[in-house]
């Protein structure tokens, strides 16, 4: 009995020793050289594995960052400059600081501005809706309101506002990973410069229809009149395909365009509201929209009456 036990223990111990030696030599011989810095970099990453950097996850980003000659092409939008500084310190690279970005919903099509022309009775999915038709309003460019962006956000930064029917971005939670922009079949969401203290100016409309058509579909649509581009002293605004776009790298936040816009399509957010100033300024633009609205579509001259007839 005792001998059986001794034999068993002895054989198993011997076998274990032998196999461990085999494993030891194999591990030595076929060792995969991996840069220890990959682990270090991965540790300082946010670990959300959101894919916002363009890689499959944080580990893949770390691997790419270590292998790359510099950090120019690689940036973690979630961690931002803080994380990138740590990564740069580990790798001994220099980084160019990037201005923080934020997701911006470029649509003014609230239930009030953009009357519904039909009822969508299908699946609550923007992707399905966009593949079938142009949407339940007269505007075929704007937000479809089924919330694919909300589902795509891993940070809980987007919610649908039931009153407006539009998604809203919580700036404190948005990591600018771009998942919502990818999920939106209409391309309504754009990543834009967050701006100093969150102040930024943007055209909240991407309607490429001619002025009269766009205006008919939505009260606050960009009608492509070009007034903003004329008033802009920094050449930040371009009007193409009947819609204005503000280049955030050139915009100096002077807000002249905001006052000029006849439909209120240009939004300025997070600006402090100095009370006396707004009082003196606001009466000026307030009566303006009415007269400005009439000549604006007329500036489109020839096509305007035709489009009316069609409709």
């Amino acid at each position: 009995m005792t001998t059986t036990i001794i034999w068993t223990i002895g054989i198993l111990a011997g076998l274990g020793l032998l196999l461990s030696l085999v494993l030891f030599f194999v591990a030595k011989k076929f060792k995969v050289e991996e840069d220890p810095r990959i682990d270090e970099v991965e540790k300082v990453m946010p670990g959300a594995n959101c894919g916002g950097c363009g890689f499959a996850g944080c580990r893949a980003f770390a691997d790419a960052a270590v292998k790359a000659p510099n950090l120019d092409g690689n940036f973690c939008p979630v961690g931002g400059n803080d994380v990138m500084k740590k990564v740069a310190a580990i790798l001994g690279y220099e980084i160019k600081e990037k201005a923080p970005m934020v997701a911006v919903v470029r649509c003014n099509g609230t239930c009030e501005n953009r009357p519904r022309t039909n009822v969508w009775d299908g699946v609550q999915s923007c992707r399905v809706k966009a593949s079938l038709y142009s949407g339940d309003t007269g505007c075929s460019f704007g937000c479809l309101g089924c919330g694919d962006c909300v589902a795509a956000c891993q940070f809980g930064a987007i919610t649908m506002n039931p009153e407006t029917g539009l998604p809203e971005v919580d700036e404190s939670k948005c990591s600018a990973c771009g998942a919502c922009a990818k999920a939106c079949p209409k391309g309504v969401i754009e990543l834009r410069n967050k701006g100093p203290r969150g102040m930024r100016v943007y055209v909240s409309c991407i309607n490429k229809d001619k002025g009269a058509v766009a205006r008919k579909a939505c009260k606050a649509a960009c009608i492509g009149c070009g007034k903003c581009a004329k008033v802009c002293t920094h050449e930040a605004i371009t009007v193409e395909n009947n819609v204005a776009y503000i280049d955030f790298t050139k915009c100096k936040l002077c807000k002249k365009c905001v006052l000029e816009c006849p439909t209120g399509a240009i939004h300025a957010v997070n600006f402090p509201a100095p009370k006396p100033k707004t009082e003196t300024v606001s009466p000026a633009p307030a009566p303006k929209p009415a007269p400005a609205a009439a000549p604006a579509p007329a500036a489109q001259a020839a096509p305007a009456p035709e489009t009316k007839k069609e409709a």
Partner: protein
Amino acid sequence: MSNSKVTFRIGGVHPNDSKLARNCAIEVLPLPQTVYISMAQHLGAPAKPVVAVGDQVKVGQVIAEPGGFISAFVHSSVSGTVKSIAPRKDIAGNMVPHIEIAVEGDEWAEGIDLSDTLVTAIPSDRAAVLEKIKACGVVGLGGATFPTHVKLNPAPGSKAECLILNGAECEPYLTSDFRILLERTKEIVVGAAIMQMVLGGCRCVIGIEEIKPEAIEAMTAAVAELGYKDIEVLSLKKRYPQGGEKQLIDAVMRRQVKSGGLPISVGAVVQNVATSLAVYEAVQKNKPLITNTMTITGDCLPVERQHNYLFRIGMPLSYIAEYAGGIPEAAAKLISGGPMMGRAIANLDATTVKGSSSILYLSEAATKRKPESACIRCGRCADACPMGLEPFLLNRLYKAGDIEGLEAGSAQDCIACGCCLYSCPANIPLLDNVNQAKGQVMGVIRARAAAAKAAAEAAKAAENK
């Protein structure tokens, strides 16, 4: 009613056929003041306008030419002045270039035979006939609007054994094909004989669902009277989607088309009866495809207000709806096409196109989606799918974003017939999701094909160096 046994072997459902407008003879719609003719009325590249604003056009005059190999000519359906060439919203609300023509009189272009005489002599010059079909802008009127001259000219090496004329009209409510089977019977037979000649003398089967005995009778008599070789009329079992291309081939020839394959790979060419009529008019009468038949029907429209109309392309849907007596109050949804595969009309200002087949007014009870509940894996969708797919599994894979799994599950074979959604007791939007999945898989397959082609070309270029 005959009890036909001829049907496809996999899946299928039996919706109530609701052919309410079956006894309404075809009426000709009067001309509106303006027509808007779409440049994208066919599958493939949009047509390119060849007229300018201010030009005078006649009925049947070419106003746009094909924009690619798979594309078609577009002709003016009225006489008058070209008012504008501008993008306009189509039935789904998407911008498509349209030519606007103000109607002045009704003057036809020269060379078009407007008489009713039946021309039965079949021309023998195959190339000339194909050219004529192309020049007259004939496209498949069964729904896909694929250019007919391309379909009738199979790639070298493939031989058509059977031309199947699709008179099944398996979609509930629609009666336009039934009406032309009754009223234009002989023309359809002559059209079939022309296509037979073009395809090199194959046999021809005219398939009609058993619920249209009058049409089967009339067609059988016309075939016997005209005496063309190898044309037969076949009564098909009433079952949806009997008129699906692949289902019809299975029913008639007992052959199944491989995934991703064309009907010609099993020796079949399927054409709709309305296409056959268009081919007859093009070849024998030199009349381009500018008219088609559409049904105005629905469960909330009194029978006396239901119609089958001969319309000209470019007539606004709102004009037709108004002429037919306006939209009934109980209508909750307007559909263009059948209730199973048709699309909801999001924009009534849109115009008729070559493939328009109906305006359907459906009540809320008939169309409103019921609340969705959980899948209990009953398998009814898999039983109903005529392509042998498993929609409940594909639905899960789509939600998980597993494109490889979707491809392995053949999501790309979905024909969007809607049998799964129709049969689902839990009201799960299977059709919507599987159709999306199909789009994603097709995108991957196309990208792979493009990459393979580019790689092959690169290898060839390297070899040549």
